[in-house]
Structures are given as structure tokens and as C-alpha cells.
């Protein structure tokens, strides 16, 4: 069992991939409005940006396909571990692993690291129940673990993650497909207020199953935050609304 639980006050944080690798004091974000900071996804080895069209807008939102570029765990620790130890708010490190072996290596390097308050482990969209259980068990140790599930399959997978030791579930941006101008199709993660009705329903259904869930996806206003919390979410994660005039103070 984890030695400490996660608590969020305020009950809000950013999603992995929305605010970089550390809470930058020079940004316009009001850090006091967030209860935790979630890092960009970090893999064991470096990842380069995706090829081809990466951003495709549609009414009410946009599709993003970036490949989660990052310089790899060693580089991230060299560059940002000091910032985490001085962070004004708890830091949750988001891990992107290609299997349990990689995950174990990364978790070992992060446990007992000053400033790291928890881990969020991202699961691929084709994850099976066995993969979720194995990843959760590989991650649980000194730090509380949040398992980020593909939103479309969270009802199917959430119970296994919690039983395996996760303290909560978070929701990855749903995946979608759009026609491109070149007549092909582009796939990626969906952002923007147009997806809120879907994400709010998923949160409602998970809480009906007594799953501790951090609500995310499509939150753009204070009313959206309140709706997620009323539906039973432990907390909310904000994504692209933070890129609009630094969130326009939706939490204040």
C-alpha cells in the first residue's frame, strides 16, 4: 500500500502535457488555484515529435497528435528535479512506459525524490485488463499512483486498476479522427468544450461504481468544474483551457 495518499486542495490540477515539466513561476498561471502539478508525459528514453499534421481544429475543439515528445527520464531529472523540489505545489510525475520493465526502472528512480508527491501512469488506448493490473502493480510502492485510462474504456478497466492498488483513476483525452484537407484522415486526442458532455457522463458512471476518479476533458468554465465535482469527481484536471489567456482564471 502507498505510504501516503494524495489530497488536492484546491481540487484541481493540470493534465499531463498541458503545462510542461515543472510549474514555471514566470508563467501567467495562478499556481495557488491548483492543488497539484502534473508533469508532461515522460518516457524512459527520448521521444521525438509525431510526423505529419499535428493540429486539426473543428467546431468546439481540436484534434492533437504530437507523439508526446520528451527528452527521456534521465534528461528530465537532470533539468527539472531541482525545480520539483522547490515547487510551490505537489508534483505528480506522469510516466509513459512501453511495458512493466520500463515502468519499474522509472518508478525506482522517482521514489524518495524530493518534491515528487505521486505518480500518474498513462495506459495506451489498446490496454487490456491484464496490462492495467501489471502496470499498476509495477508502479505501486512508496508513492501514491494514479492510473490514467483511455476515456472510452475507463468503465471496463477502472475497477482492475483500483483493486491492484491505484489511489485514483484519471482520464486521458478521448481519441478521434477527422478528414484532412489532403483527403486523408488524421487521428489524435480531442480537446475543447465540445467533448465535455462525453467526459462528464463517464465521470458520473465511474462514481456510480464507487471508483475514485479525477475528471478531465472539455472543462472550460467554472460551471464545468462544478459539474465534474458534483458528479462525484475527486478533483478535476484542466487541459487546453489553460492555453486560453492562462485559463482566464476559471478557478478563481
Amino acid at each position, binding site marked *: 500500500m502507498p505510504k501516503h495518499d494524495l489530497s488536492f486542495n484546491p481540487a484541481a490540477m493540470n493534465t499531463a502535457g*498541458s503545462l510542461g515539466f515543472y510549474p514555471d513561476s514566470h508563467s*501567467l498561471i495562478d499556481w495557488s488555484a491548483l492543488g497539484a502539478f502534473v508533469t508532461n508525459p515522460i518516457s524512459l528514453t527520448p521521444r521525438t*515529435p509525431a510526423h505529419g499534421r499535428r493540429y486539426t481544429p473543428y467546431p468546439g475543439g*481540436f484534434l492533437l497528435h504530437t507523439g508526446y515528445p520528451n527528452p527521456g527520464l534521465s534528461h528530465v531529472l537532470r533539468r527539472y528535479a531541482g525545480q520539483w523540489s522547490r515547487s510551490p505545489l505537489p508534483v505528480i510525475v506522469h510516466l509513459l512506459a512501453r511495458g512493466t520493465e520500463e515502468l519499474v526502472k522509472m518508478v525506482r528512480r522517482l521514489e524518495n525524490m524530493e518534491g515528487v508527491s505521486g505518480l500518474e501512469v498513462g495506459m495506451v488506448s489498446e490496454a487490456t485488463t491484464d496490462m492495467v493490473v501489471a502496470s499498476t502493480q509495477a508502479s505501486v510502492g512508496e508513492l501514491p499512483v494514479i492510473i490514467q485510462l483511455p476515456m472510452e474504456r475507463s468503465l471496463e478497466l477502472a475497477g482492475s486498476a483500483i483493486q491492484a492498488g491505484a489511489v485514483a483513476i484519471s482520464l486521458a483525452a478521448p481519441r478521434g479522427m477527422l478528414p484532412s484537407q489532403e483527403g486523408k484522415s488524421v487521428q489524435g486526442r480531442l480537446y475543447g468544450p465540445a467533448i465535455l458532455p462525453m467526459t462528464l457522463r463517464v465521470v458520473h458512471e465511474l462514481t456510480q461504481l464507487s471508483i475514485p476518479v479525477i475528471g478531465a476533458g472539455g472543462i472550460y468554465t467554472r460551471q464545468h468544474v462544478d459539474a465534474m465535482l458534483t458528479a462525484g469527481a475527486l478533483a478535476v484536471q484542466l487541459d*487546453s483551457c489553460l492555453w486560453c*489567456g492562462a485559463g482566464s482564471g476559471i478557478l478563481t
Partner: protein
Amino acid sequence: MGHSIGRISEIRLGSGRIPEMMIACPESAVPDAGQYLLAYDRDDPNTVLSIPLFMAEKSNQGFWAASLSPLNWVPGAKLDLIGPLGHGFDLPHNIQRLGLVVLGDTVSRLLPLVHLTTQTITGVTLFTDLSLPILPAALEVYPLASLKDFMDWPDFLALDVPLDNLPQLHAIFGLSNRDILPCPAQVLMTTPMPCVGMAQCGACAVPARRGWKLVCEDGPVFDLNVLQW
């Protein structure tokens, strides 16, 4: 990173038939050539992301802005402004013959360079295939296809290039992959920047000679030699 409030006071049709907006704002918010300013209309429920605005022309009230995408904002709209952001053009002082090359949807983002340099240089030539608004009389204009015949003329090139068009530069210059550009060049890379430098999300990544660069954070103006093209 400055935060200010601005207002759209007028809209006109710029080059490439792209609307340009007069942004009335404090002088400290006006971006230099190639830099950008983030604008967000908090009263517009359809706004999903902040919009990067580039300076097309300075004015007494603020500046004429050229955006990367069509906008449905109207005169009178009040905007939250963040910036100026990014690295703009940094032209050497000893330029005599400046070549401007536009592969993008408007020449407006490069026009401030003409106003910057007309006191010191002997000639400015613009290479573009766009239909053009009324331009400064000192500016000569040629189609892009003629650039390869003029490559020994400029002693500095300033370019406006969409990310997708970067691989076309060799052909436009009439150079092989092994040829060296005959003069220094800076390029304004234009591409959507959804996270606007807040997340290093990678959506605006551009291939570089060593790894990759982010247009929002490392650019949007680069020395062309830094990029892989």
C-alpha cells in the same frame, strides 16, 4: 511576459485577402517584426485557444495585426493580450540588398522589415505569388519562380514559410541539397501553436540540424541554417 487589454478598432482586408485587425493597445504590447502576441476574447464562447497575432504595421494606437488563421472577431471586441512573445527578426545593420520571400498566405508579416530598413539599404525585393495590396513604392516584386535567378543579388534573406513548405526551399532557391545558401537568412516559421509555449506540447515542432525546435518557444524566427530544410 506582459499581460494587457486591447480592443479591435478596425478591420481591413490585407494581402492574400486575409483580414487584418487594428489592435488598440499599450505600446509595450506591440510585437516587433516576427514576434507574436497572444489574443483571447473572453466574451467569445467559440474561442477554444488563444490566437497568435503578428505585427503587420505599427500605428499610433497600437498595431495592425495579421493572424495565422481567419477569425470571426468584430470591431469593438475586447481582447486579453499576452506578450510580446518569441524571437523576432534580428537583421544585421550592414544589409544593402534585402530579399523578402513569402511562401505563406500573406506578405504582411514581413512588411514591417521594409519600414525598418528603408533608411539604410539600397534595395528591397519581394518574391511571392500572392495577390498584393498597395505596397511601398521602393519595393520591387517578382514571382517566386524568379528567385533562383536572383540568388546572387541579396545580401540577406527574410522568409515567411509555413512549416509544411519547408522542404520546398531548395527547389525555390534553385539549390541542391549540398549547396550552401549564398547569404545569411532568417525565416519566420508559421504553423499552429496550440499550447503557445506553455507546455512544450510538440505540435509546432520543426526539424533542426540537431534534433528539433519548437516554433512557439525557440522561434518563430530562426536562422535558416539552424533548421533542417
